[in-house]
């Protein structure tokens, strides 16, 4: 009995110790209940895990009250099914199994006092009395959070492994310790073209690898690790077998013999005791990357070759400090250094010592660095010390983060171009100088010739009008002297014209010119010559109206020249016909002068507009230098016109001039107001007098129309400066309108003469001129014009100026009286 009792005591002691250990452990929640589930005991572990104090729960609630109610319901339902008896969702669900003596350990979510939840593993034991009647339950719980998390991590890792293993993008090959393939996944099948069955237990990964590479790798590893490594699977797995991380590039060979570059990661698979049981080789197809790399390498290579082989430009890379980092053929050609001699040297070597002393090389680099690009042109030194004129462009090279990596320096040798340019410039200057010299010479010569000619012509004129009158024979001689003299003057004037045109000093006064009036003037000027020579002249009927863009005086000079040539180089009793026609398409008016002369052969036509090629003089001994046509051509061209000739031997020639057609001056409609001749003497009271001195009838007509609008102004006109001055003195107009380019005295001379006269000095004189350059206007204002208006006439400006001038005149008149 005693032995039994002792055993029992020992057992109890043991049980008590275990119970104590469990009850006092903070790592276990120990909850004891009565047979109904009401908590009777709530240990420190339970307090810590669940956040309740024992007093909160003892005799108050059952463990079901601190469990997830959904789980309790689910468990009740599950147990009902499992055990074939209805089980109440509540404490019964937690303790039923234990009550039947079945071992029960289950997972359950406990809910803390603060409402947070945690997974627990709960072991339930029924507490029984001596008669095996249940008197309560003990629920021992552990916090399952850490394990749960570990399990989840494991699951994730497994998923990842699965993903890798089942991915078609990775070849996963697992081998045994000897390298014989044991696993060959879909990725490997796809990449390598083998089915798993082709390789499993048959070959090692070395047999699907490039044998040369395997041999090379074996050799390299032998060297690296100092131990002989067999070319074969060992070469692929040796590092991994030593626990060294190993990722390498390798060419795999497919079943069909084609090859592809792969990046292979090798891991040793080990058992619990760290013994290697196999290897896992995970490979990716590196073709795309390899391809891109090769392409890049190729591009870089060809770019480098291109730069190197350029020989027209020196393309040099400098490091950030300015040392030469690369050197091409062009640099060698231009500067004379071979790459070996110059690489690493500072680029200031190419500068002249003075430039270096002044810090120019550094400044150039700094400018390039600050602005990204810097261009310079100047002398640089070759290896042999000779100088060359260089154009240099520096470009700063920066990496993606903006750090200065160096400079690209592009140099061109412009020495030759400079020489050519200098030569050309020089030649041009010489030619221009020669041309100027020629113009100056012609101009001064014509002046020199005029002085003695002035004496000849002057005294001959005196003799001609002497009293007593010269004898008939003397008279005849005097006329010969005068004719020759005036002709000589004409030649001199032509030479001077040519010189003036060629030196670019001839000023043109371009304005709309009505051909009708102009041709009438020409006709009357040339008719006497035609009559003396017995030549019939035909002019167009005056009802055709053309207006051209021209200098009135100069176009008259051209037409007179053509007409007098046509008369002089004609056949006896010949005829000359002038005609006009408009070409609406080209916007030009063509004036033709047709003669009935001998005509000119083509080779002579070509020379016609060349200076000093007088044609026909050998035929009829007619005077002429041929300069007239050259001058005419130049003048017409200055008016944006053309001149030409067509000729038929035996029939005659047609000289033509084309000028830009322009709109005739628009004459505002107004009643004609005719100024009677007798009204010249004195103006009726209140009527103001305006005198317009103008040789261009078109302009005169326009002003007539404008003035006709006003009842308070009468218009008088004069066609040249002399008559203008005379008329002004006679009628003392209130205001004078004065053209500048007038035959005889100019508008400015007329102004000056009127200013000298006591009676005319006060009259406001308004210039109205086609000379519209600021210089012309300034000159006019300096001379003393009241206002300076430019043609074409702008009606409102004209009217306003007229009013101002009239007001000014009235003021003066009032003051004078």
């Amino acid at each position: 009995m005693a032995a039994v009792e002792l055993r029992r005591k020992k057992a109890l002691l043991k049980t008590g110790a275990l119970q104590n250990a469990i009850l006092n452990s903070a790592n276990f929640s120990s909850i004891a209940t009565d047979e109904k589930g009401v908590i009777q005991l709530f240990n420190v572990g339970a307090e810590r895990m669940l956040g309740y104090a024992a007093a909160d729960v003892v005799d108050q609630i059952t463990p079901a009250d601190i469990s997830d109610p959904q789980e309790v319901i689910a468990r009740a339902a599950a147990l009902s099914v499992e055990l074939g008896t209805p089980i109440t969702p509540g404490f019964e669900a937690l303790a039923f199994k234990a009550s039947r003596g079945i071992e029960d350990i289950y997972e359950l979510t406990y809910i803390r006092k603060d409402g947070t939840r945690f997974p627990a593993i709960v072991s339930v034991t029924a507490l029984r009395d001596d008669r095996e009647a249940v008197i309560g339950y003990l629920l021992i719980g552990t916090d399952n959070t850490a394990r749960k998390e570990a399990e989840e991590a494991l699951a994730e890792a497994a998923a990842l492994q699965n993903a890798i293993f089942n991915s078609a993008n990775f070849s996963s090959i697992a081998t045994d310790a000897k390298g014989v393939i044991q696993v060959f996944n879909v990725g490997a099948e796809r990449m390598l073209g083998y089915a798993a069955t082709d390789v499993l237990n048959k070959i090692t990964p070395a047999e699907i690898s490039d044998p040369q590479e395997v041999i090379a790798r074996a050799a390299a590893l032998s060297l690296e690790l100092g131990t002989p490594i067999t070319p074969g699977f060992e070469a692929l797995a040796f590092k991994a077998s030593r626990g060294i991380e190993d990722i390498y590039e390798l060419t795999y060979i497919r079943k069909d013999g084609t090859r592809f570059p792969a990046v292979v990661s090798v891991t040793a698979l080990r058992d619990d005791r760290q013994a290697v049981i196999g290897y896992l080789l995970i490979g990716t197809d590196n073709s795309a990357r390899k391809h891109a790399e090769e392409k890049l390498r190729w591009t870089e290579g060809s770019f480098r070759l291109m730069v190197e082989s350029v020989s027209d430009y020196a393309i040099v890379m400098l490091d950030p400090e300015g040392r030469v980092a690369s050197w091409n053929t062009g640099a060698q050609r231009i500067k004379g250094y071979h790459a070996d001699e110059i690489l690493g040297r500072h680029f200031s070597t190419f500068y002249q010592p003075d430039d270096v002393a002044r810090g120019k090389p550094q400044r150039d680099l700094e400018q390039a660095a600050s602005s990204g690009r810097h261009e310079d042109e100047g002398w640089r030194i070759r290896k042999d010390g000779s100088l060359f004129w260089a154009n240099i462009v520096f470009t700063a090279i920066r990496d993606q983060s903006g750090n200065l990596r160096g400079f690209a320096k592009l140099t061109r040798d412009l020495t030759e171009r400079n020489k050519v340019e200098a030569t050309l410039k020089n030649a041009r200057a010489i030619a221009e100088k020669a041309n100027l010299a020629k113009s100056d010479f012609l101009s001064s010569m014509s002046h020199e010739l005029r002085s003695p000619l002035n004496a000849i012509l002057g005294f001959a004129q005196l003799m001609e009008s002497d009293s007593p009158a010269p004898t008939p024979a003397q008279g005849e001689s005097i006329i010969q002297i005068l004719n020759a003299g005036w002709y000589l003057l004409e030649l001199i004037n032509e030479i001077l014209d040519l010189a003036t045109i060629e030196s670019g000093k001839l000023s043109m006064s371009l304005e709309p010119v009505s051909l009708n009036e102009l041709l009438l003037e020409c006709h009357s000027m040339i008719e006497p010559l035609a009559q003396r020579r017995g030549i019939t002249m035909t002019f167009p009927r005056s009802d055709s109206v053309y207006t051209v863009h021209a200098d009135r005086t100069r176009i008259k000079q051209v037409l007179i020249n053509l007409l007098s040539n046509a008369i002089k180089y004609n056949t006896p009793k010949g005829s000359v016909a002038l005609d006009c026609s408009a070409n609406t398409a080209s916007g030009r008016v063509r004036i033709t002068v047709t003669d009935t002369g001998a005509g000119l052969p083509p080779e002579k036509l070509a020379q016609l507009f060349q200076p000093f090629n007088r044609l026909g003089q050998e035929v009829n001994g007619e005077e002429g230098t041929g300069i007239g046509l050259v001058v005419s051509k130049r003048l017409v061209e200055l008016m944006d016109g053309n001149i030409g000739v067509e000729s038929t031997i035996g029939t005659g020639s047609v000289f033509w001039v084309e000028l830009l057609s322009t709109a005739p001056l628009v004459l505002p409609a107004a009643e004609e107001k005719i100024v009677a001749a007798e009204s010249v003497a004195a103006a009726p009271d209140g009527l103001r007098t305006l005198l317009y001195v103008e040789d261009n009838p078109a302009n005169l007509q326009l002003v007539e129309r404008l003035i006709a609008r006003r009842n308070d102004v009468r218009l008088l006109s004069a066609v040249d400066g002399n008559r203008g001055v005379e008329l002004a003195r006679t009628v003392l107009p209130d205001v004078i309108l004065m053209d500048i380019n007038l035959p005889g005295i100019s508008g400015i001379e007329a102004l000056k003469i009127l200013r000298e006269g006591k009676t005319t000095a006060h009259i406001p004189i308004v210039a109205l001129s086609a000379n519209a350059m600021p210089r012309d206007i300034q000159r006019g204002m300096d001379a003393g014009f009241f206002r300076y208006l430019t043609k074409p006439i702008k009606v409102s400006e004209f009217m306003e100026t007229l009013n101002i001038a009239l007001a000014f005149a009235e003021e003066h008149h009032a003051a004078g009286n």
Partner: protein
Amino acid sequence: MLPATDALGPRILIVDDQRSNIRLLEQTLRRAGYAEVMSTVEPREVAALHQQNHYDLILLDLQMPEMNGFQVMEELQETRSANPVSILVLSADSTARETVLEKGGDSFIGKPFRLPDVVERVQLMLKAAAP
């Protein structure tokens, strides 16, 4: 101040370094009825002569040694406001017209000239100056 003209008509001075030109102009003007025609080949004397004789018109050459017509006009400029005088420039340099008008000349005739043109111009200018 003396009147610009006296009983004998307007006073004219011819300035030219070439005596032949002076003779030509003198005869031309005398025939045209101008009695008070004087002359000098010495451009430096012109201002002083004008100060003394109060000419109505000066016929002035441009190209003269030692002192050209422009310089003569410049010298005259100082006395012209006190003793007004018209200046007609006669020059073989037909391109000088604009410059002459800018520098104080009143009118310009190129050489060689037609005698009637000279007479007409002189008349025009003297009439203007007449009271």
